[in-house]
């Protein structure tokens, strides 16, 4: 049995999504820009999907622009705003590359984060000069699951750069946070279907009325001229079903999944020395585990419910992932290069992590199909795999590793 703990990379497509998409493709989907009956049917499907996405995202139907995924939505937000309004883009250092690359390549400014992984609001305040036209701050980070204080960011933007648009990349957040409510402060919101049980290659950008953003794809004028190209009707219909189910199940899923995640993260911290959990204050050290009735629970309030992200001293995660896979546990470290190699994480670097420690990162992300058996499987195989790699690759004693972590102090806290 395979234990899939990489839902943050992509999560299995929901059954209802498969059913609706299969039915549409079997029956035949017209081109929604056409005039005949099949085309009108396609257009109706799109309209219904738009209504559902609007409801799920707290927007008006006319504010939903369908795209080919999170990267396109992010690029459209940044480049489209710069083209329409000029000025400069600002983002955090922990954004997905789909934001960082557009911001950096257009000469924008990258604002640092605190060791907690959250944006340095003082640095943001300094960066918010009148020429800033777009500020992009993700809702939840794709590697660590750390949630940004979007309301405080919005307040700063409104007061210091009132003409700037606020964009939030909610790609990782949508399954675990009430984006319809939290995202209301943003002018632009990106989501991607395959992160919440829809198909890959489909996404949306909320573009609030008045947030004039120039199109990146020009042509037939679909999506009210904001994104040309024949819509992926079946995919969009699938995304809408996935979004609706996600919102419906979200309150219960947050409880169920965060309980699994906490057991997973607590179990790792209890059974393996020399481990740092990102975005979780480190005063809850492994020493306290030994004490009965520990009074100091790890505080994961700033993390999405589904991510357990840890760094192990004294090993390289690509070797760890290999051993986990041999034991049918599929996970990931951080971002991957297109070559498939593990790259040092820019997110952990921005949080001040030592490069070696960052190379030992492991992201175990849960999702709608996760079960207690998945958590058990990880807790069964991980301690031995970690110990094996530490012994083999470094030859270092466990006490040395623990000492190194202790000396490093509050990294990640």
């Amino acid at each position, binding site marked *: 049995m395979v234990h899939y703990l990489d839902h943050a990379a992509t999560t299995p497509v929901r059954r209802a999504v498969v059913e609706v998409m299969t039915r549409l493709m079997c029956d035949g989907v017209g081109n929604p820009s056409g005039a005949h009956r099949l085309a009108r049917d396609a257009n109706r499907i799109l309209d219904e999907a738009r209504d559902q996405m609007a409801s799920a995202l707290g927007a008006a139907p006319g504010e939903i622009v369908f795209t080919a995924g999170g990267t396109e939505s992010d690029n459209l937000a940044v480049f489209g705003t710069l083209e329409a309004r000029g000025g400069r883009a600002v983002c955090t250092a922990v954004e997905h590359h789909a934001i960082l690359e557009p911001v950096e390549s257009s000469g924008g400014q990258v604002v640092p984060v605190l060791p907690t992984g959250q944006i340095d609001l003082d640095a943001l305040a300094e960066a918010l000069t009148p020429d800033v036209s777009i500020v992009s701050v993700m809702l939840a980070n794709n590697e660590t699951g750390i949630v940004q204080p979007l309301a405080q960011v919005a307040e700063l933007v409104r007061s210091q750069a009132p003409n700037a648009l606020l964009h939030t990349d909610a790609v990782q957040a949508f399954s675990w946070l009430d984006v319809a409510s939290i995202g209301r402060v943003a002018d632009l919101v990106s989501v991607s279907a395959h992160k919440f049980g829809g198909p890959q290659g489909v996404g949306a950008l909320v573009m609030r009325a008045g947030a004039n953003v120039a199109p990146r794809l020009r042509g037939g004028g679909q999506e009210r001229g904001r994104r040309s190209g024949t819509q992926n009707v079946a995919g969009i219909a699938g995304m809408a079903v996935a979004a609706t189910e996600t919102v419906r199940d979200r309150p219960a899923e947050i409880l169920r999944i965060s309980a699994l995640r906490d057991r997973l993260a607590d179990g790792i911290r209890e059974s393996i020395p020399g481990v740092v959990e990102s975005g979780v204050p480190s005063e809850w050290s492994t020493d306290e585990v030994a004490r009965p009735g520990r009074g100091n629970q790890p505080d994961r309030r700033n993390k999405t419910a589904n991510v357990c992200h840890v760094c192990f001293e004294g090993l390289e995660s690509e*070797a760890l992932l290999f051993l986990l896979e041999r034991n049918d546990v599929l996970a990931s470290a951080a971002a991957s290069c297109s070559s498939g*190699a593990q790259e040092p994480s820019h997110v952990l670097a921005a949080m001040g992590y030592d490069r070696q420690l960052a190379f030992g990162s492991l992201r175990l992300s849960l999702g709608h199909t996760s079960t207690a058996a998945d958590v058990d499987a990880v807790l069964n195989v991980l301690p031995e795999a970690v110990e094996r790699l530490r012994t083999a690759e470094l030859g270092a004693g466990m006490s040395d590793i623990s000492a190194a972590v202790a000396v490093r102090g509050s990294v990640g806290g």
Partner: protein
Amino acid sequence: MAEILVAMSGGVDSSVAAAMLVADGHDVTGVTLKLWGGESDSGCCSVSDVEDARRVAQQLGIDHHVFNFGDDFDKHVIAPYVEAYDEGRTPNPCIECNRHIKFDKLLRRADALGFDLIATGHHARIVTDADGFLRVSRGADSAKDQSYVLHMLDQRQLRRLMLPVGDITKERVRELAHELGLRTATKPDSQDVCFIHSDGGRRKFLGDRIPLSPAVIVNRAGQQLGSTDAVQLVTIGQRKGLGLAGNDDRNYVVDIDRRNGVVTVGPESETFDPHTELVDVAWSGTSVDGLLHIQCSAHGSRATGRLEGSRVVWDEPHRRVASGQSVVFYVGDEVVGGATAA
């Protein structure tokens, strides 16, 4: 049947090495090492080479992984390479990569992951000599022999290593690749140092990392014949590329004084030495007192000589060996030891 991790560069030799191991019934996993993040002729991140390796692995029905050893490569190959040129030595980066990356880091990784053996596509053989020692020996294809760059492997490493294509010629390697329909069958052999881009060459690579300094070029009479803006790029015995008449047989570099910025050229005869001083002499088994075949560059010819202390005494005067080059000792086809030119 053994569990074997085969290093697949995306070239034809390692592709066929993997195929031969699969055909022999082993449990084979492919791995491509990502070593260099900078520019190279194979493209950024060598994505196309990784893709070739991955596609070959798919054809063979084996798993394929990518390991990022970039930091180790920077530390053990790039930094010493730059430092050597900065200090007037001529390094062998491929040997350092083999020493520290493929047969140390990768071997330890393979151990940790539970593999019995590793394999590469080098054209060389591993033989057991009369004393029971494992030795690196020349590959079946003498023109493609790579025993020189594997000379430093010790018993522990050799026991864990397979070199499947060492027993066949390069022509046969390509035939096998064609027969199997491998996409790397006609891929050209790699020629130069993998991290040096053909556009900028060594000059740009070194110039980006260390200050290059000028020198005048004089003959033995002290007469200035020209100049160079990068004395670090000049090698003993070099004749071409100095801006002098390339066919003049008195224009061989015979001395390089980096401190004072003087390159002296002279007749070819002056580039020959009766002996060569060595450092770091190491024997793979017991030392050999008698006649040795000695090779001083990856594709160089082999000369004969004997070792006297830490110096090679050549049977015939030998072209000067640049400081920093590996000097490898053979008896017959077998590597018996090696050293570095002082």
